[in-house]
């Protein structure tokens, strides 16, 4: 078990998240964001937005909205405690706002290892679309699985 090159090209469904103002305000609070554009609807409108805009990295949360977002790792025999985030990329196609319903899906684009298999890498691409099917963001993620020395898996 673990990450093998057989996974390249396989896909999995993601999550769907109806973006609410309250969730965006919660995210702003958790990230120390004080710019009123991300908190106050009136300030957002004054800045030309139709509602609170979705901040640059919140899209990652859409995919985590799946009922059991780490189940696919379990199914691969990967211990969640051994997983590190290696790289993350966002390419922005349009600004999303509170009221939008965003959905993700993921395809595995690469699997490789380093240090003689001590570290395993999985690269995925996750497009995010809105309720009209329009592409909002493309995410690319590199996940790293390390060996848990002396720890029962």
């Amino acid at each position, binding site marked *: 078990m673990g990450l093998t090159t057989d996974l390249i090209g396989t896909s999995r469904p993601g999550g769907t998240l109806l973006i609410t103002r309250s969730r965006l305000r919660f*995210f702003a*609070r958790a*990230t*120390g964001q004080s*710019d009123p554009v991300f908190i106050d609807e009136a300030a957002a409108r004054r800045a030309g937005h139709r509602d609170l805009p979705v901040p640059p*990295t919140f899209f990652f*949360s859409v995919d985590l909205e799946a009922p059991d977002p780490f189940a696919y790792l379990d199914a691969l025999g990967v211990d*969640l405690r051994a997983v590190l985030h290696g790289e993350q990329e966002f390419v*922005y196609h349009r600004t999303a706002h509170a009221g939008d319903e965003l959905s993700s899906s993921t395809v595995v684009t690469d699997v490789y290892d380093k240090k003689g298999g001590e570290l395993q890498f999985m690269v995925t691409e996750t497009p995010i679309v809105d309720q009209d099917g329009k592409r909002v963001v493309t995410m690319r993620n590199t996940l790293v699985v390390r060996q848990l020395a002396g720890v029962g898996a």
Partner: protein
Amino acid sequence: MTTTPLTVGDHLTDLVIEPISRTTLALFAGASGDHNPVHIDSDVAASAGLDDVFAHGMLSMAYLARLLTDNFGIDNVRSYRTRFASITPVHGQPTCRGVVREVSEVDGERLATLDLTVELSDGTTTMLGEAVISLD
């Protein structure tokens, strides 16, 4: 919005973050939907051979995104990517930095490419990144 730097080599004003508390990690777990217990449950961290919980990489990426939106506004961020170079322990204090690497014109749009870093107060670089920003 602060003054937009236009010249290669310009530095954005550093964004200094408060030391990351356990409360922040709990809030970020809830707000982001990343409930991986290794960030919020010290028992789980210990079972993985770690000294303590550590911050979500995406928390640092969210802090660094504030540097981008503070300076340029959200509509102007074209792409943003980071490599997580080392973990951020609980109580770590990140500083987010950006410097203009390149200014170019693509299809009539002026774009700036920024080199980005997040560094802890002990000098550890936790994140290296890049963003492309529209200057128009």
